[in-house]
């Protein structure tokens, strides 16, 4: 075996199909979902991992949707990146695991993704926490 040459096995070859059919289909579906949001106040979303989604599709979506005004990062069981696209009402949400592995990638059509909204229970807890801090500073501080 000493004379065997190392061979180069290409681990990454072509993209799945080399077209952006899925991307086009997603854009059509987004149009419907956004209409439903505007007309009937119904939010919706698309799971990008459930589709045969190639680099060409991603590029098409990124170009067509563009960048919006909001970009947020949520830190809960690993990071989640939430950004509004250039089409208001369409949000690109990516959930990562604690090892930065993407777990789920969604296009959410909504006024505000639920993960950004403070849950009312948490707000209640926040209120009592704040009061406790005020109490502390009133009594201990100057």
């Amino acid at each position, binding site marked *: 075996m000493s004379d065997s040459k190392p061979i180069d096995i290409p681990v990454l070859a072509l993209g799945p199909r080399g077209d952006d059919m899925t991307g086009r289909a997603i854009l059509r579906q987004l149009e419907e979902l956004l209409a439903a949001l505007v007309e009937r106040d119904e939010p919706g979303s698309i799971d990008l991992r459930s589709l045969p989604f190639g680099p060409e599709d991603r590029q098409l979506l990124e170009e067509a949707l563009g960048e919006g005004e909001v970009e947020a990062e*949520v830190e809960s*069981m690993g990071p989640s990146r939430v950004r509004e696209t250039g089409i208001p009402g369409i949000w690109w949400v990516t959930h990562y695991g604690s090892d930065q592995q993407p*777990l789920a990638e*969604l296009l959410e059509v909504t006024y505000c993704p639920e993960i950004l909204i403070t849950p009312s*229970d948490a707000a209640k807890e926040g209120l009592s926490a704040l009061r406790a801090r005020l109490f502390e500073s009133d009594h201990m501080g100057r």
Partner: protein
Amino acid sequence: MRDKTVLELLQARGVSRRGFLKFCATTASLLALPPSAAAAIAETLGKTRRPSVIWLSFQECTGCTESLTRAHLPTIESLIFDAISLDYHHTLQAASGSAAEAAREEAMKAAWGQYVLVVDGSIPLGEQGYYSAIAGVSNLEMLKETAAGAAAIINMGTCAAYGGIPQANPNPTGAVPVSAIIKDKPIVNVPGCPPIPVVMTSVVAHYLTFGAVPELDHLGRPKSFYGDTIHDRCYRRPFYDQGKFATSFDDEGARNGWCLYQLGCKGPTTYNACATVKWNDGTSFPIQSGHGCIGCSEPNFWDKGSFYQPLSAGIWGDRQATLGTAAVAGAAVGAVAAASTRIRQQHASEEK
């Protein structure tokens, strides 16, 4: 502990409401459910009591457990397992010996009729089942006993699902799959040698979430992961369609990443999620690493001819001998037929 809901358990572990939403969204995505199912999952988990899981390992190589412990998504996965409480798994649990057996009996008693039984490995029937025994109890006996109180059974790996390698010709131990013994419980097969880690965790998560087995194909496999062939989701498929095939493992074609059909790839008749979910944190899968699919999630995969023989090649013993014998026999019969015709013709002309 046991009567807390899954949501309460997660909250007790410091998972916030947002974390929970994320958990539900990623679970829906993993289970290949529409995103709208996330809300349903959230609701169910808020109500479901923590189910109990007993994992039995029979005639197996521990590869399935090895694979499972390498599930990526550590956070989500460990949550699922913490939540479902693995009450008995003789490889993973700390207890051993009679303490371990006691744990199994206790878990069975505490959740009789409600626990999920996970099995890896096949069950030998030869020698009254004593080719494989745990703590003096044969696999056959232990399976019957434990299955009796189970709500559902999940077979992890091809051995438990279809008999796998222990059952391969000549099957010295008389190995059979779980379904050959247990007929009266819902059974989910999660075949693979081993199965993909997240497929294992997701199937358990599905049961946990909905309290019911997912939709299955005719071989008892969840359709969400075993719905397509490797071939139909393979990134090398364009090469198959273009007629570009690697003809050895280091030729031009192999270097260019062409289709591995001619090198024995069993992708066209194999249903599994390797081509989409992939292995090792989504890094790659066998075909992407240059080796054809061996069809490990299909029944009898070990006995379907060589892994390196093209799928369309014959699978019976000596092919050339079959054809040679047939040709010789046919020629002989033809010669006899011609000779007898000649004789008849001769008689006929003599009679004239």
